């Protein structure tokens, strides 16, 4: 397999699931590999575009911090400048990737040097109007640069606010298709500049004019106003400039932009119009009539985004641009486009949504809720009446709209219209009855729901509907879950129980009257579901249900067959019956039923449950009974719940035995601060310093033959309460901490058990033992299962614990009594081996930084104390060794040169170098540093 093939597999794997992909490697090393391959001259453009796509789509995964982002952008920039001119597509992709990285890693927001340079380069690229200098072939690059600048201005509004004159000139000069890009860039810059000015208290004519005349650098400070602006929306206060400013120049700019809008693609036209609408809304000196000349063209448009922009204009300017006649006309257009045979379904659905949110000149309410415009009369909306030929989304959308229409309509029209809608529902149900695929069934029930939401008060119709539904159920009992769902939703949303109780009563009757032949095992399971739901309604008498159950059990072979599922479904009905308020009336019957089951049912579990219910029924008062049966967390102490946990209904058992989930963090792990004695777990046999020095390394390495030698890092944490935990959790017991690794670089961490954590006591210490396969930084997902005082069990997520690179450092695993000379010897041997390239993965590198004498000594003391091999402060040289399990070494030779401190690095695993580098950079951050690879 070639390298290109390998990437062809790896990149899609990454894009499909970055988290899974990174479980086998780290983002640092993956990024390093990507950059390395991008620098490979032999790789073709197509492969490189594929590589860049990773940074194009997931820059923040690969560059988790601003500094990594900046570095990566720099790398990409160097790749960019080394890419030949003819690789246009690759260059465009790199350009986009750099822009993505710079914005997403906040390089732009924090005004880094890289962002500044990049902006300059982009701006320079777009100077070449009409491809005068670079030729037509470079045009795509210019287009991409314009779009990158536009994105940067969007994410950092005002960035271009001092460059508007320059941008205007470029826009004027450009006559190729790219003038659209320049036009959009200029317009966005203009709008943001004005928006920023509206935040200023007093605006003078001069300040206002200087917006258009700006020809300076990038305005870095302007974006204190927040990251992005929301588009101006009439629901909120529109920011406005003070009146009386001289708008002559701006007006002519606006007119020319509008005039040329015809030359833009419809998509960009709609964006341009929206920006210009916002400008006019903010500047009192500009009149909305500016748009008048465009209106007719917009009214006739077949493009959804242009129609949408027109509606935005309408919402913003209402009667200052749209007369009552215009409004009427626009609404009629909307209604007719909402059913135009040549438009697509999603567009038509959107237009119907637009009708229900039509920006009226004189709105009655402005709640943002769906409401019908006054002008939509039944006659106007008649063309939107639903039919059975509509696709389901269109049908439901039309039904909803027409329900609103007839709710508002005058009496005569109302009746006719509602009758039509009702007939339509009946026609749908007839199709369901005929056969009806699942989709038809679901759509029909949604239609019934919509109808009831509006017209449940119309008794005659809703009674008819009940008759129809029951009639259907008698033939198609598979509709049981749909019917139960309908009942539940109607009760939830309308709070009206009259209709739903009537329906349930009807269904109960329907089941009672069913000929015994229809009560097959299969059908019975649906009926039992319905009866279970019926039993929940206090207003419905349950005698018939009990008779039926008894009758079925006695007269069929159900008891002999003894299927647990059926028995359980019967008991589920019984359970609801036990809670029924008028249980007194059927006390004896229910007792008979339960007793019959407990004697005759051929399944021990069902028998036991039935007996249990029987004793509950015969021994407890109803109040107590319902108390015992009540579900939910408010049930009081643990003992009572253990009764209710024995409910027959399987879901009931599940919900009562479930380990609850806490909503917030209850516990957390806090690193124990003082530097622990991080030591490898096993101590080795003593090494004689007198032994022949050449053999020392071998002897050292032999230690690793002992299984488990030096393979573990122990991290110490305190297990404490998280800040905002509920008082319920003040005392938690029998905690089991479970660790999940986010990658595959470590062996599984075993669970840790802690007897208790009390808020008012010293937190217990927890030792987490990590066994790395690869000593990379990692993150542990920690969860805990514990019990609270009331006996409930909880599952709670703890905040993730991140293990940084230096936390995995161990001192050289030699016995404590090993002499200094002995250590130095091992150090030197390892160094020599690494420098000569053995093992294969060895590498050496160099890191430099500036610092004063004092601070260097401090630095060494704070960071390297436990790892020093030699400390020759007088000579200005130190040797440091970090051992990283399972068997990696990072060796530092620190020497103080005249103007800088040099850190020579050697490691037997080059993949660690990026981490070493960022670690060193981190600890030397306060000094000016320069890192170089060796």
């Amino acid at each position, binding site marked *: 397999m070639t390298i290109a093939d390998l990437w062809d597999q790896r990149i899609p794997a990454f894009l499909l*699931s*970055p988290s899974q992909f990174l479980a086998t490697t780290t983002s640092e090393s993956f990024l390093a590999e990507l950059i390395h391959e991008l620098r490979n001259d032999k790789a073709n453009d197509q492969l490189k575009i594929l590589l860049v796509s990773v940074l194009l789509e*997931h*820059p923040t995964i690969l560059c988790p911090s601003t500094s990594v982002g900046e570095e990566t952008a720099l790398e990409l920039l160097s790749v960019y400048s080394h890419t030949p001119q003819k690789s246009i597509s690759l260059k465009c992709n790199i350009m986009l990737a750099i*822009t993505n990285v710079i*914005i*997403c890693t906040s390089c732009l927001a924090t005004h880094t040097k890289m962002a500044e340079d990049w902006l300059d380069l982009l701006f320079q690229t777009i100077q070449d109007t009409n491809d005068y200098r670079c030729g037509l072939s470079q045009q795509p690059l210019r287009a*991409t640069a314009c*779009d990158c600048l536009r994105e940067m201005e969007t994410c950092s509004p005002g960035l271009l606010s001092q460059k508007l004159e320059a941008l205007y000139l470029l826009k004027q000069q450009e*006559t*190729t*298709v790219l003038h*659209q890009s320049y036009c959009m860039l200029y317009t966005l810059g203009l709008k943001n500049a004005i928006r920023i000015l509206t935040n200023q208290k007093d605006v003078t004519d001069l300040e206002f004019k200087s917006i258009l005349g700006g020809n300076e650098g990038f305005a870095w400070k302007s974006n204190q106003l927040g990251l*992005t602006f929301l*588009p101006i*929306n009439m629901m909120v206060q529109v920011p406005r400039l003070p009146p009386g400013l001289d708008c002559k120049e701006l007006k002519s700019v606006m007119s020319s932009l509008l005039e040329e809008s015809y*030359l833009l693609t419809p*998509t*960009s036209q709609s*964006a341009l119009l929206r920006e210009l609408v916002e400008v006019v809304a903010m500047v009192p000196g500009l009149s909305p009539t500016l748009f008048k000349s465009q209106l007719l*063209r917009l009214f*006739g448009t*077949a*493009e959804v*985004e242009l129609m*949408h*922009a027109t509606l*935005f204009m309408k919402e913003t300017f209402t009667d200052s641009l749209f007369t009552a006649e215009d409004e009427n*006309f626009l609404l*009629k*257009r909307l209604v*007719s486009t909402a059913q*135009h*045979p*040549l438009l*697509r379904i*999603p567009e038509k659905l*959107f237009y119907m949504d637009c009708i229900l949110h039509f920006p009226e000149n004189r709105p009655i309410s402005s709640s943002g809720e769906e409401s019908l415009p006054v002008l939509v009369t039944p*006659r106007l909306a*008649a063309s939107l009446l639903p*039919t*059975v030929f509509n696709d389901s*989304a269109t049908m439901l959308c039309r039904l909803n709209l*027409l329900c609103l229409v007839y709710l508002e309509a005058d009496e005569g029209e109302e009746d006719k219209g509602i009758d*039509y809608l009702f007939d*339509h529902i009946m026609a749908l149900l007839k*199709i369901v009855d*005929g*056969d*009806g695929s*699942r*989709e038809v069934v*679901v759509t029909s*029930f*949604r239609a019934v*729901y919509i109808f009831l939401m509006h017209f449940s008060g119309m008794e005659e119709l809703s009674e008819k509907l009940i008759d129809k539904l029951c009639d259907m159920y008698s033939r198609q009992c598979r509709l049981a879950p*749909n019917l139960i*769902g309908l009942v539940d*939703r109607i009760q939830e*949303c309308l709070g009206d129980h009259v209709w739903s109780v009537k329906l349930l009563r009807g269904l109960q009757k329907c089941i009672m009257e069913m000929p015994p032949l229809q009560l097959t095992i299969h059908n019975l399971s649906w009926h039992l579901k319905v009866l279970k739901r019926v039993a929940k309604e206090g207003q419905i008498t349950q005698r018939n249900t009990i008779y039926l159950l008894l009758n079925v059990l006695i007269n069929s072979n159900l008891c002999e067959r003894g299927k647990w599922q059926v028995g359980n479904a019967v008991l589920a009905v019984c359970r609801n019956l036990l809670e029924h308020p008028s249980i007194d009336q059927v006390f004896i019957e229910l007792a008979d039923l339960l007793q019959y089951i407990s004697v005759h049912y051929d399944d021990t579990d069902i028998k036991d449950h039935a007996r249990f219910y029987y004793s509950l029924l015969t021994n407890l008062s109803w109040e107590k009974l319902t108390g015992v049966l009540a579900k939910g967390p408010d049930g009081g102490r643990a003992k009572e719940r253990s009764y209710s946990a024995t409910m027959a209904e399987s879901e009931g058992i599940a919900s009562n035995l479930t380990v609850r989930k806490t909503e917030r963090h209850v516990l957390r792990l806090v690193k124990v601060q003082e530097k622990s004695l991080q030591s490898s777990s096993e101590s080795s046999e003593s090494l004689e310093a007198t032994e022949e020095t050449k053999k020392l390394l071998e002897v050292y390495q032999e230690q690793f033959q002992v299984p488990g030698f030096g393979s573990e890092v122990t991290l110490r944490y305190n297990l404490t309460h998280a800040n905002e935990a509920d008082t319920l959790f003040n005392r938690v017991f029998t905690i089991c901490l479970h660790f999940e690794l986010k990658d595959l670089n470590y062996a599984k961490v075993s669970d840790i058990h802690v007897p208790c954590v009390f808020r008012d006591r010293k937190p217990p210490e927890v030792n987490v033992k990590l066994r790395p396969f690869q000593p990379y930084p990692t993150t542990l997902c920690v969860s805990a299962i514990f019990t609270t005082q009331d006996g409930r069990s909880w599952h709670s997520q703890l905040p993730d614990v991140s293990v940084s690179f230096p936390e995995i450092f161990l001192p050289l695993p030699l016995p404590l009594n090993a002499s200094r000379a002995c250590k130095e010897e091992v150090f030197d041997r390892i160094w020599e081996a690494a420098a000569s390239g053995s093992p294969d993965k060895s590498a050496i590198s160099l890191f430099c930084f500036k610092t004063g004498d004092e601070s260097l000594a401090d630095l060494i003391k704070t960071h390297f104390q436990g790892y020093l091999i030699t400390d020759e402060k007088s000579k200005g040289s130190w040797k440091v060794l970090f051992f990283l399990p399972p068997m990696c070494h990072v060796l530092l030779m620190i020497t103080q040169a005249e103007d800088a401190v040099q850190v020579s690095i050697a490691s037997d695993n080059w993949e660690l170098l990026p981490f070493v580098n960022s670690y060193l950079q981190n600890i030397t951050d306060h000094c000016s540093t320069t890192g170089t690879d060796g």
Partner: protein
Amino acid sequence: MSIRALWVVSHEKGESVKVRFSRRFPTVEFRAKSLAGAQYVSVPEDRVVPQLLLTELGLVDADKPYVDARDDCARPHRSPAVELCVNGRTLWPVLIVTQGALILACLPLVEAAPEPRPPLPSLASVSQGLALLSGLQDFLCGPGGKPEPDVLASRLATLPSLLLQVCPLGRPLDTPSPAGSVPVAVSPSPGGAQKQPAWKAGVHRGRAVVSVALTEKVRSMQYGKSSRQDLWDVFGMVMCKCEVEGVLPNVTVTLTLPPNGSPLLDILVHPCVTSLDASILTACSVDENDGSAFSGPYKFPFSPPLELFRLCSYTSQVPVPPILGSYQLKAEENHLKINVVLKLHESVKNSFEYCEAHLPFFNKNLMGSVEVKVSSGQLEVSKEKNLLVWVLGQKFPKAREATLEGTIHFSGTVAGPTDPLCTGLTAYIKLYFRVPDLTLSGCCVDQHSVQVYSSAKPRIVTTRELVSSEYYIWNSTGDAPVSSGHTAL
């Protein structure tokens, strides 16, 4: 006005659902995060997206009769935007377009406070997302709507470079042009003072040709009952292809109606039309039309793009249907007596390219013997589909009337095709026909009325045709479903 992510997913029968293409836009995501604050819901990984989309479309767990997450009756299923449930949180608004086994979806940026949820029409990105998806649909599926697997694969492979042009950073700049529509004889813009339109990649070089094709489609629902009014309507579109030199050449196409012709309604125009007369737009199908409405000539001045485009579309209400049918079925024991009469209206030219009547029979056993005679044309019987196809050919007989009579026995033991609508005696005939050089509205584009302002005199080609679309004749002895509430009221 941006989208956060875009997906193309396929779910072929028998194959597992696959992400065929996806693209995320991190800078838009960066904005989404800061706009939504604590309500931010991140875009899920591609690994899980297909399943989420299928759940939303009701396509998961096909073997289970009822699944709450899929079938709940209170789920709003009437918007172009749906919600995806991601780890208990809701990602909204996801726009979905489906075509065959392809699902196209995108997630527009919500540029508004996330709570309370803003209405869909208040979000600029939504219409842009819809337009982008429609463009992608045309690009991937082409005019036929069902591309071959290898064609689709090659089009999918070009998507990255296409997006580089039309949507490089999540902000749509243009919609993709339909596959294969970009013409060949194009040279770069000559430069000069006139700005090149962004929707026109270059200028045409070579012979000047302007073709204008007018297609009218007629729909009908005929019930043959006094209690139920028959319905028919017409909609038309004018497709243009202009190979004319110049950066912004001016062309004007004029549609004319015969005297007393009913006006063209609901006119929608292409964005390249430069100006419109207000009177052209006023006639609207949702209004009562009293005959006083503007009835032409309809002038459309425009500057054409390079590719084939739909200049305008309209609807029309014509006084008579082109073919009036009657369909009667009588059930007798295990056979059906059948009687069909089709009449061609005298105003319609008796010269078809093709004309066929399809008579399907549903929810019955397969056909046994078929004893049916036709007065004109041929009859093809497809017993395994329970379908009769009456091929009327190019012409109706002189009397402009054709009949079909006979009996069909459904004596087979195997059940035939099913349909939930056509139970009992509910049955229909569906007509398929095409008449060249005819429009029902009478609308036409005169060759001489096409004006082109350019140095070279172009060749001008105009055509027109009438095509059937959803043309049904229902059995008058059965219950036919209501097809339009408009006339029912």
